[in-house]
């Protein structure tokens, strides 16, 4: 089996889905000739032509807005926003239209749209190139939010997202893009949305993470009886798996790189506080980015939760 990094795995997923279904098209800034600034769409233009791989004007609301029209018409657009920091101008289209088209038209029109975008810090990028605002999209009924943490899950999840009849915001960690290589089969497989993955089994504490933070959790969990959950789909998230694990371990630490306040960690913690509190032995801890604008490269490393900060919180909950 070929060893692929996440960029290659996502590229493969796109290729397979475009071959399978002529209604799948790719659009965005520099996704064609240039193959995308991270090379995720490399080779697609050559293979599928400019009709299916569209280099668009510099226009995020226009990209998502036109993609909504295409999706309603019957296509399955996969729109790329070059960095998550540039998705905000398209937020109105995502929230006011993509998320609501099905409900507003009582099912007559649907929006099978995937908005792919690289997210997160950790690659010494310029300002506004390190955003991790998944929480905003998890507060939008009608939108699904997916964040893969590995090449093989990225491939299976993206294929499911493309086939999903509803709009999906698909977040790709720039840090993970070329960090890991693993076996990724080019055989047909998908990973269902809405289901989490136990990345490591354990009995004493549950770590919950997604995307790039999963790997730091696994590192922090080394040598202890910790269970690590890769949430994969943040909205709707897999409550069952989460509660089952929490009931088993009685201790939970949630980790994400977004700022703490109103991050997705809050929802996970609150859900536990509502549904599983009686089983909990310790407070639910959150290890997150600070309530601050993500700093430029010189301070980036201080901003992101690292293995030590995660370990400290684990030690904290293990005290109970």
């Amino acid at each position, binding site marked *: 089996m070929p060893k692929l990094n996440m960029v290659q795995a996502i590229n493969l997923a796109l290729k397979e889905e475009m071959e399978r279904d002529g209604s799948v098209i790719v659009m965005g800034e520099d996704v064609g000739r240039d193959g995308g600034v991270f090379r995720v769409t490399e080779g697609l233009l050559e293979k599928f032509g400019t009709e299916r791989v569209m280099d668009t004007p510099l226009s995020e*609301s226009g990209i998502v807005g036109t993609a909504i029209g295409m999706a*309603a018409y019957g296509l399955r*657009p996969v729109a790329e926003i070059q960095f998550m920091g540039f998705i905000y101008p398209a937020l109105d*289209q995502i929230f006011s239209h993509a998320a609501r088209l099905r409900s507003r038209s009582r099912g007559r*029109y649907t929006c099978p749209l995937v908005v792919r975008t690289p997210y997160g810090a950790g690659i010494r990028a310029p300002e506004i190139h390190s955003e991790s605002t998944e929480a905003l999209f998890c507060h939008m009924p009608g939108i699904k939010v997916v964040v893969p943490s590995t090449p093989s899950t990225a491939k299976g999840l993206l294929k499911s997202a493309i086939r999903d009849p509803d709009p999906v915001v698909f977040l790709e960690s720039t840090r993970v893009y070329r960090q890991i290589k693993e076996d990724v089969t080019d055989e047909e497989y998908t990973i269902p949305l809405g289901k989490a993955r136990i990345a490591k089994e354990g009995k004493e504490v549950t770590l919950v993470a997604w995307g790039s933070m999963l790997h730091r959790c696994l590192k922090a969990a080394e040598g202890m009886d910790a269970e690590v959950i890769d949430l994969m789909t943040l909205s709707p998230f897999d409550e*069952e798996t989460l509660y089952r694990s929490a009931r088993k371990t009685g201790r939970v630490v949630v980790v994400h790189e977004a700022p703490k306040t109103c991050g997705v960690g809050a929802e996970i913690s609150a859900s536990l506080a509502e549904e599983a509190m009686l089983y909990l032995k310790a407070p639910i801890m959150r290890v997150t980015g600070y309530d601050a604008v993500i700093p430029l490269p010189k301070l980036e490393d201080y901003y992101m939760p690292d293995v030590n900060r995660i370990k400290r919180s684990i030690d904290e909950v293990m005290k109970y």
Partner: protein
Amino acid sequence: MPEKTIESCNITRLDILSETGEADEALMPPLSEEQIRKIYALLVLCRTFDHRALNLQREGRIGTYASILGQEASQVGSAFALEKSDWAFPSFREMGVYIAIGYPPYMLFQYWSGDERGLRTPDDLNIFPVSIPVGTHIPHASGAAMAAKYRKDKVAAVAYFGDGGTSKGDFHEALNFAGVFKAPAVFICQNNQWAISLPRERQTAAKTLAQKAVAYGFEGIQVDGNDVFAVYKATKNALDKAKNGEGPTLIECYTYRMSDHTTADDASRYRKKEEIEEWKARDPILRLELFMERKGILSDEYKKKVEDEAKQKVDDAVKTAESVEHPHPADMITFTYEKPTPRQKKEMRDF
């Protein structure tokens, strides 16, 4: 001198039917007597519907409503040029477009009475649910047009929006996409001179709205929006052009909002009665009636017949709308996704 002109553009205006009902034969589009009668009946139906909607709102039988009084020709004239396969993307003030393409009027009352089911477009029509956020639906038309082009369908997408809508970033991005991808799209601006209390000249410093097309490298034209023939002709030309792969067009229908912005508004706070009086003389239906009389195709009994039929249709629509059963509370959750989420399933147990 090397301070040379590198680009010039002219914005034209199309007028065919005068206020006194005279039509410029040279410009008159090829419409049969029957078609003209059809257009007339639609105009009357629209006005009857609109009048009733305003009454229903006053009686508290529907919610806030946005009247189309005065804009019937802009809406019917353009919609009449559409083929069944074309896609329309209306704003909230396009009841005339819905009615002209055959959308069941009772569903419109249903929507304005606060029931989403009224927006479930019948399967044989291609019109989007009204867009409440101004201008944000214009990119959808560009996208649908791009999709039609990709599918090689002989289909055009038409977006309707107001003068205020032209100030939105989405107007800009949508028209720019349509221009770049030479999409079969037609952008119809209903310039009714007001955006709630903001007069047209404060909306933009541009002399016309049609000239905004210059920014996107395609044609913009202004038409007398109270002249149903001019509106029809400009739209028909734009649709043909679009379907022949010649790209998009921006049409500014120069018309007037005769009513308050909505039933929640009081226009007397910000505009003069005189202005409204002036525009009364330019009424689009009166004008067509004068034309038809000249042509001898508008007898009193025919006129009465048309009005009675319109009244009947609207009466029936109200009856039907008010007889549909109350929506089930769970409906508000059911249509969020194809399948409810586990959390939504739990939530639905509340009902």
